[in-house]
C-alpha cells in the first residue's frame, strides 16, 4: 500500500508540472495513459481539498463548531485545521454565536476556543475562567503530539499562550502534570529532530508553562534528569506559596471558587495539587 502511494505521488508530483497538452506530446502511448491517470489522481486531491473548503465556507457557525470539535478530538492543531481557519476568517461578527457552541469542558472544545480567542478576546474573556482552563489543560494532558503547544523553551503556540495568560490560576491544574513523565513528542522535521534530542515529556511542558507564567525564562537542559531538578524546584515554589497561604490563614491559591470547580475531579486523589503540596 505504502509503495503504491509512493509511486503514485512520484508520478503525481511531477505530473502536476505538466500541461495536459505536454503529456500527450511527449509520453509514449502506454506512459501517457498511466501518467494521465496519475495526473487525474493529483487533481482529484486538489479537488477534494477545494470541495472540503467550499463545504466549510457554506456551513453555519454551529456546523463549523462541530467540524472544529471533530478536528480537536482527532488531535489536529488549530493551524492545521481548515475549519479553524474558516471560523477565524468570519471575524468578530460570529463570536457570540461561536461562544454559544462552546459548552463541553474537554479537549474537543479546544479549536473552537482558540478560534474564539482569535476573533474576539472580549467574548473569550467572558467565558468562565475555570471552563477555559479545563479545556486547555485537558487538551494538553491528552495530546498525542504537542505541536498545538509549541516547543518548551523555544516558542509557544496560541494554545500555550492561552494557558500562560490565565496566570497563577493555571497553577493548580498544571501541578499534577509536573508528575506526568509520558513522552511529549512533536511531529515535524527540524522540530522533531530537536525533540528527539531532548526527549521532552508532559512534565517538561508543565514546567516551561509555569516558568512562563512567572515570566521567568529558563534554559531547559537537554538531559531529562537535570530538568527533573527544575521540576522539583517548581514543586517547592508551589509548596512555599501553599504554606504561606495557610500561615496567613488565607485560602490556598487554587481555592478560589472558579478554580476549585476546575480542580475537583481532576484525576486521582494522589495527583491533586493538595496531595502534591503536602
Amino acid at each position, binding site marked *: 500500500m505504502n509503495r503504491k502511494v*509512493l509511486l503514485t*505521488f512520484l508520478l503525481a508530483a*511531477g505530473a502536476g508540472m505538466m500541461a495536459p497538452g505536454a503529456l500527450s506530446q511527449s509520453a509514449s502511448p502506454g506512459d501517457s495513459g498511466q501518467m494521465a491517470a496519475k495526473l487525474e489522481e493529483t487533481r482529484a486531491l486538489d479537488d477534494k481539498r477545494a470541495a472540503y473548503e467550499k463545504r466549510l465556507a457554506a456551513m453555519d457557525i454551529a456546523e463549523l463548531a462541530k467540524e472544529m470539535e471533530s478536528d480537536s478530538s482527532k488531535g489536529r*492543531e488549530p493551524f492545521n485545521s481548515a475549519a479553524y481557519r474558516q471560523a477565524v476568517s468570519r471575524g468578530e461578527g460570529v463570536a457570540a454565536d461561536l461562544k454559544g457552541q462552546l459548552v463541553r469542558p474537554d479537549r474537543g472544545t479546544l479549536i473552537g476556543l482558540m478560534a474564539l480567542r482569535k476573533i474576539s478576546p472580549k467574548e473569550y474573556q467572558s467565558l468562565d475562567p475555570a471552563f477555559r482552563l479545563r479545556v486547555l489543560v485537558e487538551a494538553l494532558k491528552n495530546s498525542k503530539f504537542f505541536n498545538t503547544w509549541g516547543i518548551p523553551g523555544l*516558542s509557544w503556540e496560541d494554545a500555550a499562550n492561552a494557558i500562560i495568560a490565565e496566570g497563577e490560576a493555571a497553577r493548580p491544574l498544571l501541578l499534577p502534570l509536573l508528575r506526568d513523565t509520558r513522552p511529549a513528542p512533536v511531529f515535524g522535521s*527540524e522540530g522533531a529532530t530537536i525533540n528527539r*534530542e531532548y526527549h521532552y515529556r508532559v512534565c517538561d511542558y508543565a514546567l516551561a508553562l509555569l516558568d512562563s507564567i512567572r515570566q521567568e525564562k529558563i534554559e531547559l537542559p537537554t538531559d531529562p534528569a537535570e530538568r527533573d531538578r527544575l521540576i522539583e524546584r517548581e514543586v517547592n515554589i508551589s509548596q512555599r506559596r501553599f504554606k504561606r497561604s495557610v500561615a496567613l490563614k488565607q485560602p490556598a491559591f487554587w481555592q478560589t471558587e472558579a478554580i476549585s470547580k476546575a480542580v475537583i475531579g481532576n484525576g486521582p486523589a494522589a495527583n491533586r495539587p493538595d496531595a502534591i503540596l503536602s
Partner: protein
Amino acid sequence: MFRLSLSLACAAVLFAGCGTPTHPCGTFTFSGTPVGNGGENISDSFSFGPSQCSTTCNCQTICFIQIVRIRDTDTGEYLAPSSQQFDRIVTGQASPALNGWAIDRIDNRVWGYYARYNDGTFASYLTPGSSTSPAILTDGPGGWPDSSWFDAVDVPVCIDSKSQCVDELLGYYYWLYTVGAGGATETPFSEIGVDWNEQAVDLCIAKWNSTAPGVGKNLFPTFTKMQ
C-alpha cells in the same frame, strides 16, 4: 520489484517531461532510513565541486536551505509543524506541484538556513561544509499522520561573505517518503532536483522574505544560482 517499478515510474516521469534535472556544482550523497512512526532518519551530504560548473570559487562556509511539503491525502490539506511554518506555505500557484512548500525552520530562529542558531552558529544536526569538506544535513522528520506524504528539497548555499560566490545556490536535491497505515515508512525516493524544484525553492524564499519581518526573522539575501 518495487525498485524496478520505481525506476520505471521515474523514467516515465522524466520521459514525460515533468522536469529537467538541475546541474549541481558538487556531489550529493543521500541516505534515508525508515524509523516508523511516520518518520525517517535522513542524511544529505554535499561536497562542493566548483570545477563541475567551470568555476574556481573557494567557499569556507556552506550550509543548506531546506524546503518541505507535507500533505494529508485523506483531505488534500497541507500540513505544517507550527503556525509560523503554516503561514509561509506557498499557495495560489497555477501549477499544483509548486503549492504547499515552505522553508523548513523551527520557530524562534531568525535565520532561514536550516539548523542555524540566532548567533550564526549551527546545531549539531548540520555540519557546515567548505571547498574542502562536505556540508552534511541530518534530519529526523517524524510523527506525520497515516496517509500523508512528505517531500523536501535540500539546497546547499555558500554563506561565506569573503567568498566570490557568496549567496550562490550550489545545487538541488529532492527526496520523498510517504506514511502508510500505523505510521509505516519505507526507504525514501531521492534524486537530483529538477527545474520545478528550483522554482519551488524560489517561491519559498520569496514567501519567507514576505513573512519574515512580521515574526522578527532575517531576510534571505538575493541569491544567484551557480551553474
